[in-house]
């Protein structure tokens, strides 16, 4: 029990604890310790010169981090204490120890051991003589004992004031110890200072504080250390867990941060979808599969007899009809049992909750990310001050220890420099503004035209498809006309826009945003025509449903009637109808779900094919046909593709919109999407690295992806509308889905409140739903928003103000120096005119001349007079060597110190 104790102390406090423990212990224990600590370690510790003299204390402290040192010090304290009492004990006896030792029980043990050890020491000395180290330590121990006994005496005799003073000094020294790492000294010097400080602390710290508190303190220090270490490890672990970091870094190094920003966005999206997937599958799909009724048990879970022949055909399955339609992927499959399984899982409720929770979670996440990004954006808002300097001095990652990464890093640094150079040139450029304005107007006109055209085209196609819907004799093209047209538009328009946008000649970053906005408008048109078509369909289905509902009830009656007539026995309960034969409604929810799934899948196909053909095939052709072609394919017309950031980002955003809208009607959609994102991460990474070339004008993505996020938020909001509308107002189908038989989907919540929660909760909810409460609540929220908004505006203003001030201060400083230079210039000219006044004159003319040639700058000077002092100090620090500063043009000899000062780092003489 004793030993582990000690060893712990040793581990914590370093050599000191070990050393202490060692001496008193008997020989074999000593040996033990030796073995355990490899010789090398000893050697490492030993090599310090300081150690020679310092012995135990310094040995351990050499250059460990401050905290450890403090821990060590605390430890030492303990040790010192123990010795104190030891000394006292030697003549007074054990009983007295209690008085001094207070609550230090652990100490007592050590003391005992100490006394024992002393005896043992005496014996052991003869044996150990060979080991000079131990001898050394022994001596030191003696010395130390002297010290500590001194301090113990002091402790008794000290008054409060002395105590405080001592405390201060100790604190000071401690601070020095803690900060020793911050001093840019050589190791030797550091060691020396450290040793001194440590000795002092050792000597006097023992005199401070009470035993118990000390132990607590040591414990606390240790714990904070451990906690910090844990945090760091955790942080490392977390960063190690982020997937595809290397892949993205690789892409980034080759293509610049803008392309990488797409992949980062993709990764973010993947993370979000993974969570959504977890919710949907964990709370809806899996329970239904495990605990719900199996396939074929009830009509909604069975393929109707008319479709059964074709239900397994590949083409039918690819359209998500047949077995797919009656599977867990879609809304219609779920049963409206209130609870399922032994766990009494409330599936309908959980279905609704997950549907709403999907939106809630996504909204929260998007907004949170936006806020965080905005934060970051605010943080480096001032980076315009130092772009190049930072690039120059902080872009190399010293962690890189791999030749390949280093190559990438070189590439990426070069890229980023080029980006900044482009930015810079952009700033400096100003040309024919009228021409450009005209071009921009023209471009916008063209784009509006094409947008309008595509809008009309979609409208036309939708109309036609509604016509087609009533007919059966359709060719493949006519059936899929709408999807084809929409995909085509998606393919053709973005490049068209890009071509037009070249007229505008914006900076690539701004151009990208415009491009994104335009394609967004296009897609939005598509989406909403699609939605309207869908709503039409839903409405017709709803009407149809009403008829079928009656028909099915009637058919049921008929069936039973027939059955009893056939049997001539009205008593016998008829066997239930085969679920495949039951007449059923159109189940519009499933139809909507199928539409979304189809759209998503076709979107995946189109985008993958585009990459395969548009990028890969092109790259292959360009690469290999180049050997036998009449012009240079790589440099000339087709060349390699560039990575289309805007198109890809928007594709992603809209795909996500589909998922959000469709997830309620087709829970399986989320799973499909997760797969899609996962595969496209690898696929696109590969494609980009293999087939694309970096953009001609590399540019830096704006640091915060808030533009993407803004688009996403907009899409989220837009997709939220139809879904919430259907949930709140449309009646669910009567014979399929978890809400069948209810008037509104929302009723499931009411039902739960009524049946499962205690009665008072129901009344509570009814109160809460009272408009009298809701309206004030809404008002309050509006007020809060208004207040917060105005507060943030005020902050922003003050922020701007401060920034302006900082800039002004900087400019002023610069100006002043410039002015100093220019006045100097004037003086130089003057001197040139009067070359003979070599030694004496330069001093006098200065004060007079100064105000005359430049009245303006002098006016600003008084304002900044306060800074003069500071400035001078700066200068003093900055120029230890005045010769180095002297401009080449002036010979140092004849001038003397006067003009040198006048040239004026300092404030001008007043």
């Amino acid at each position, binding site marked *: 029990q004793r030993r582990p104790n000690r060893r712990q102390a040793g581990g914590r406090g*370093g050599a000191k604890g070990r050393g202490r423990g060692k001496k008193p212990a008997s020989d074999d224990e000593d040996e033990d310790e030796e073995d355990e600590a490899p*010789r*090398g*370690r000893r*050697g*490492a*510790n*030993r*090599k*310090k*010169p300081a150690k020679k003299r310092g012995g135990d204390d310094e040995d*351990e402290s*050499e*250059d*460990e981090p401050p905290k*450890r040192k403090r821990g060590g010090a605390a430890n030492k304290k303990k040790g010192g204490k123990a010795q104190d009492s030891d000394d006292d004990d030697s003549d007074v006896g054990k009983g007295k120890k209690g008085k001094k030792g207070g609550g230090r029980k652990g100490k007592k043990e050590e003391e005992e051991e100490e006394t024992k050890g002393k005896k043992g020491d005496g014996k052991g000395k003869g044996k150990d003589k060979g080991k000079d180290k131990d001898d050394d330590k022994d001596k030191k121990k003696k010395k130390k004992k002297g010290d500590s006994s001194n301090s113990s005496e002091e402790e008794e005799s000290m008054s409060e004031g002395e105590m405080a003073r001592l405390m201060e000094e100790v604190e000071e020294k401690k601070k020095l110890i803690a900060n020793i*790492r*911050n001093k*840019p000294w*050589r*190791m*030797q010097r550091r060691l020396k200072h450290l040793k001194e400080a440590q000795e002092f602390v050792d000597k006097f710290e023992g005199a401070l504080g009470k035993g118990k508190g000390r132990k607590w303190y040591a414990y606390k220090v240790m714990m904070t250390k451990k906690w910090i270490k844990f945090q760091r490890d955790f942080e490392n672990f977390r960063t190690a867990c982020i997937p595809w970091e290397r892949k993205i870094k690789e892409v980034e190094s080759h293509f610049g941060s803008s392309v990488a920003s797409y992949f980062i966005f993709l990764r973010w999206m993947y993370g979000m979808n993974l969570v959504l997937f977890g919710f949907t599958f964990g709370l809806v799909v899996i329970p239904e599969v495990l605990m719900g009724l199996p396939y074929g048990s009830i009509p909604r879970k069975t393929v109707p007899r008319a479709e059964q022949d074709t239900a397994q055909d590949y083409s039918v399955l690819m359209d998500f009809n047949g077995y797919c339609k009656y599977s867990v992927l879609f809304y219609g499959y779920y049963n409206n049992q209130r609870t399922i399984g032994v766990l009494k899982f409330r599936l309908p409720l959980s279905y609704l909750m997950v549907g709403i929770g999907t939106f809630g979670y996504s909204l929260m996440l998007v907004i949170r990310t936006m806020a965080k990004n905005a934060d970051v954006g605010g943080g480096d808002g*001032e*980076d315009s*001050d*130092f*772009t*190049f*300097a*930072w690039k*120059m*001095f*902080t*872009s*190399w*990652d*010293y*962690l*890189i*220890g*791999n*030749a390949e990464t*280093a190559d990438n890093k*070189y590439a990426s*640094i*070069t890229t980023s*420099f080029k980006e*900044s*150079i482009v930015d810079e040139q952009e700033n400096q450029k100003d040309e024919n503004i009228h021409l450009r304005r005209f071009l921009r107007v023209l471009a916008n006109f063209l784009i509006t035209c094409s947008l309008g055209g595509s809008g009309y085209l979609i409208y036309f196609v939708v109309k036609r498809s509604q016509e087609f819907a009533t007919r059966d004799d359709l060719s493949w093209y006519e059936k899929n006309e709408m999807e084809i047209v929409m995909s085509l538009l998606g393919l053709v328009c973005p490049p068209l826009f890009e071509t037009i946008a070249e007229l505008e000649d914006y900076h690539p970053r701004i151009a990208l945003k415009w491009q994104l906005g335009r394609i967004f408008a296009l897609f939005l048109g598509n989406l909403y025509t699609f939605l309207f078509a869908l709503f039409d369909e839903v409405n017709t289905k709803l009407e149809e449903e009403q008829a079928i509902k009656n028909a099915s009830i009637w058919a049921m009656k008929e069936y039973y009637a027939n059955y009893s007539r056939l049997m001539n026995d009205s008593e016998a309960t008829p066997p239930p109808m085969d679920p495949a034969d039951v007449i059923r409604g159109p189940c519009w929810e499933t139809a909507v779900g199928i539409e979304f799934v189809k759209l998503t899948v076709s979107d995946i196909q189109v985008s993958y094919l585009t990459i395969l053909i548009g990028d890969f095939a092109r790259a292959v052709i360009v690469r290999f046909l180049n050997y036998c072609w009449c012009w240079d394919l790589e440099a000339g017309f087709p060349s390699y593709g560039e990575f289309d950031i805007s198109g890809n980002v928007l594709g992603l955003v809209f795909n996500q919109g589909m998922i959000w809208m469709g997830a309620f009607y087709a829970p399986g959609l989320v799973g499909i999407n997760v797969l899609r994102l996962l595969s496209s991460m690898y696929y696109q990474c590969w494609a980009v690295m293999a087939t694309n070339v970096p953009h001609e004008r590399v540019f830096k993505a704006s640091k915060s992806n808030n533009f993407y996020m803004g688009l996403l938020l907009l899409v989220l909001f837009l997709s939220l509308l139809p879904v919430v509308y259907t949930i709140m107002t449309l009646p669910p189908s009567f014979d399929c889905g978890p809400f069948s038989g209810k008037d509104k989907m929302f009723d499931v919540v009411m039902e739960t409140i009524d049946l499962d929660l205690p009665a008072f909760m129901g009344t509570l909810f009814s109160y809460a739903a009272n408009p009298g409460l809701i309206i004030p609540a809404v008002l309050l929220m509006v007020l809060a928003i208004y207040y917060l908004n105005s507060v943030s505006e005020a902050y922003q203003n003050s922020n701007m103000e401060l920034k302006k001030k900082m800039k002004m201060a*900087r400019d002023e*400083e*610069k100006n002043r*120096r410039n002015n100093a*230079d220019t006045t100097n210039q004037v003086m130089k000219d003057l001197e040139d005119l009067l070359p003979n006044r070599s030694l004496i004159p330069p001093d006098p003319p200065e004060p007079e001349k100064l105000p005359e040639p430049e009245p303006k700058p002098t006016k600003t000077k008084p304002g900044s007079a306060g800074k003069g002092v500071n400035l001078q100090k*700066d*200068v003093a*620090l*900055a120029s*230890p060597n005045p010769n*180095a500063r002297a401009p080449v043009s002036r010979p140092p000899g004849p001038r003397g110190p006067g003009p040198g000062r006048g040239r004026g780092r300092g404030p001008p003489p007043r």
Partner: protein
Amino acid sequence: TRKEILRLFYRYRDLAPQLVPLDYTNHPDVKLPYELIGSMPELKDNPFRQRIAEVFSEDGEGNMTLDDFLDMFSVLSEMAPRDLKAYYAFKIYDFNNDDFICKSDLEKTLNKLTRNELTEDEVRMVCEKVIDEADLDNDGRLSLEDFQHMIVRAPDFLSTFHIRI
């Protein structure tokens, strides 16, 4: 920390087992030549390895004693304070040891960073911009003050200026 020191010692010894004794009790005067230090995997790919070695070695030639070696890694460790790092970073980028980062230093830095892939004009422009941005006292070069003023505001200086061992 103790463990780190030990690890560093082993690393140091591994570089040249025949030169470095195991037992440092009587602190022998051992130096490792730059070629060995520079071939460490941590430094091998660093464009500034020579500068690093020179700055931290006592003789300015890149030959390091164990103390220097420890010094180097303590500065480059994660726990070293920002100011200390900035100080040494300044020394590293100050190629001609004149306590100022002047244009030639900047050009050297830039060329090392980009492996001479920028054109002459671009290099000149970047250097001018850097000086323009960071030079507070307008003497056409960066003093330590300028450098610190600039570097402590850099968002990723701390995260990139360290070496893990």
